[in-house]
């Protein structure tokens, strides 16, 4: 009896996904059985896609059952490939052509005010992630994916990166904690990912390992893209090593704190006001500022409590964080708005920059605005306020 490869999900409330059951055979050719909600409109193209994939992997005899609830082609392809890889050894990858046109180059300094977590094995939640306009979309291979589904999720995330339009959001993937995460990184690297989140990061070496794997993977694929890193600090040891981690690689552009795991590691409860994590958060902010990267705050887990979220964002901004994670699209606007500078701040920043330029022009060493001295850090802060104001189309 041949082994059956099974990947994906079907039944019940599953949408935009499919379940593939594939059994290799000695003879009889390819027998496909398609049960699809969208069979009347896409039945033929689904059959053709499945045939193409089997041919690509050199499979000539097999029984394939596809239970489809409206999966897009890249999802079907990922599921079929995952099922195949359970029943045969192969390093080949079946890739649909990139369908996202003019993939821009990754940009280290872009805003990361909001970044939306999307479970890495749930196709229905990926499709519309970009329409809510987060700064980043994180396809999560770590906590959101059950241990026995990691393999299929990796392929799904790889395909999603190539074939879903996130409408300009930064394309992020949270890999698993290395060493498991190294495999994730290697697989997704050549497929348009812009930033990898490295969870439960405790020392610089972990980032460097990921960097090595990513470089190898990109080289192998002949890609010249850059991929940035955002380590997530989620333990007492990680906090102690924050500075080294921030400086571990030139590709580290931001560093986040994960408070659920951190408070567990500290043996304390996570509270609304967050006094228990005050040290850790300020330590991380400090390390990031010293390293010239963005400090990013933890997610706020009560998706129904928008007032609580707003307070949390205000506290984050006050501590110096430059972004926050979101676990629900509804949080994006509250978080983003939380980082919006006030009209007064923008006006003042404009005046500072004006005064600074004016002083420069006149060759003055000391700049004053009214009775106040303006020095370099003040100018730097004003510049940042104006960049933010520009993002918010305030100027």
């Amino acid at each position: 009896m041949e082994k059956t490869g099974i990947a994906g999900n079907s039944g019940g409330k599953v949408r935009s996904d499919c379940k593939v059951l594939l059994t290799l055979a000695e003879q009889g050719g390819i027998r496909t059985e398609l049960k699809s909600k969208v069979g009347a409109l896409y039945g033929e193209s689904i059959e053709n896609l499945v045939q193409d994939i089997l041919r690509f992997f050199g499979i000539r005899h097999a029984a394939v059952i596809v239970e489809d609830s409206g999966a897009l082609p890249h999802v079907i392809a990922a599921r079929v490939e995952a099922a195949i890889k359970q029943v045969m050894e192969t390093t080949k990858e079946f890739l649909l052509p990139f369908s996202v046109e003019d993939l821009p180059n990754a940009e280290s300094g872009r805003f990361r005010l909001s970044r939306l977590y999307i479970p890495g094995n749930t196709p229905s939640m990926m499709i519309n992630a970009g329409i809510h306009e987060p700064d980043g979309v994180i396809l999560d291979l770590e906590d959101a994916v059950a241990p026995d589904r990691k393999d299929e999720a990796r392929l799904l995330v790889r395909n999603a990166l190539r074939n879903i339009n996130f409408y300009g959001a930064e394309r992020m993937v949270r890999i698993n904690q290395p060493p498991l995460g190294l495999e994730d990184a290697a697989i997704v690297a050549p497929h348009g990912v812009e930033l990898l989140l490295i969870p439960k990061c405790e020392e610089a070496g972990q980032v460097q390992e990921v960097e090595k794997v990513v470089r190898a993977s990109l080289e192998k694929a002949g890609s010249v893209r850059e991929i940035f890193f955002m380590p997530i600090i989620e333990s007492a040891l990680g906090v102690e090593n924050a500075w080294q981690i921030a400086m571990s690689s030139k590709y580290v552009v931001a560093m986040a704190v994960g408070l659920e795991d951190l408070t567990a590691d500290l043996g304390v409860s996570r509270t609304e006001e967050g006094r228990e994590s005050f040290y850790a958060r300020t330590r991380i902010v400090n390390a990031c500022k010293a390293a010239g990267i963005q400090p990013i705050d933890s997610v706020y887990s009560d998706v129904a409590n928008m007032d609580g979220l707003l307070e949390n964002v205000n506290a984050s901004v006050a501590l110096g964080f430059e972004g926050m994670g979101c676990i629900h699209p509804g949080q994006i606007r509250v978080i983003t708005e939380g980082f919006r500078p006030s009209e007064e701040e923008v006006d003042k920043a404009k005046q500072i920059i004006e005064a600074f330029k004016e002083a420069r022009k006149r060759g003055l060493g000391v700049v004053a605005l009214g009775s106040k001295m303006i020095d370099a850090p003040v100018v730097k802060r004003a510049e940042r306020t104006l960049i933010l104001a520009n993002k918010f189309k305030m100027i």
Partner: protein
Amino acid sequence: MKSKHRELIKNAAGRSVPAKVNGVPVIPYKGVGKYRPEGRKHGPRIASAVDFPIDGDKRVENLKEALVKAGLKDGMTISTHHHFRNGDYLANMIFDIAKNMGIKGLRWFPSASFPCHEHLIQYLEDGTIHHIEGSMNGPLGKFVSEGRMKGTAVLRSHGGRYQAVQDGEVGIDIAVIGAPTADPFGNANGLYGDSACGLLGFALADSQYADKVIVVTDNMVEFPCIPWQIQGNNVDITVEVEKLGDPDEIISGTTRITRSPDRLLLAELTARFCDAAGIIKDGFSFQSGAGGTSLAVGEYFRQIMRKRGVKARFARGGSNKYLVSMLEEGLVEYILDGQTFDLDGVKSMADNPRHVWTSPFTSYNYHGKGNFAGMVDVVILGATEVDVDFNANVVTHSDGYLLHGLGGWQNCLFSKTVILPVPLFRDRIPVVRDRVTTLCGPGELIDVVVTERGIAINPKREDLISAVKGSGLPLKTIDELKDEAERICGTPEIPAFDDEIVAVINWVDGTVIDAVRKVSK
């Protein structure tokens, strides 16, 4: 195989429709406002008080006796109404009785059917019911789509149903009106009793034009039943039953405002569009459905109205606690209610003189001296498909299955601005398409399509296009939306349909705008 529809005509929308439906010649759709009826309305028989009890007590023992007394026999047309929605017991009881009496070949003429009427499929199979003319939701629609019904279904809008009865296109032999409260004379309302549903507007035409009218209630009160939404002077027979329906399903509770972030985005874009277009201003009027997305649109309207200090003169359509709270907050001066969805709505209608019941006659009937639809500034409607000419479908899915009713949808298209907030695709099925599977509403009446990936304005609405210029809204052409849907989902194959016509869609004036073909297995 014998075809029920040998002669086909291409109507003004380019759709092939049968020349005869259930053996009766029909008029093909001629265009919006192009068909003018002639002649006089249907005249019911003159009745005389001499034939009715002088003390006004028209009660009989039970429903069977009522049906027998009304002369139930083979081939008759029996009408019922969907005031009890998915909690209705009455239609099933009527046909159980008909079956027991061995009656055959009935035409069921409901104002709409619901999944609870799946019970009637057995009677469609055994010939008790020949065919259904009315909107179909769920299992009955599926049954019809598969070509299993003997006759051809006729789908009419709420206004179209009134028109068909008034014009005599559908002669009702026996109208059975379920009434939450009634008196022995036949005065009835929907406001009180265990089966309270608010109003009985869908039964108005039947009470006026049917040959025999039976009022069935599970809350018989002494004369007078006040208010009388249905007048006893039109009623032949009254009867009391134990229970008309399941109160939990009649007032199924307000659909909650959607919590889906994608739908909220659709609703927000819709409200922002209305705001940018200058529609939300003092004294304006709106109609928004009772679905989760529509409710959310209402909530965004509320926020905008509060911020601007704007009041609406009236809101049309179904009512629920959200709309009632806008009335009570003073944001809406009047609710002109066609259908009440929850207990807050029922209570408000009973207590608040500004919460007024309407009927398809006042709101929608196209063969009247005008109606309310055109007075509404903006209406928010759903659709299963929209095409690049802004034509829309609301009854079939892209695979051809007939799963939804027309409701008041076609009638509402006459509002000043018609907006369809729809997802660009549903589970890979593109909603914006080259050509709608079934034409229910002509594109010339549809102004704006709002999707989560962009808003398309009908090019003929230059006023709207210039009003929202520079608003920052994501404006696209309808073709761009279609292309994007196909880029994401793939170009859909053309589903295979049988030639057999299983249903026709009437336009608001009684002409046939499209036909629905049997789905091919």
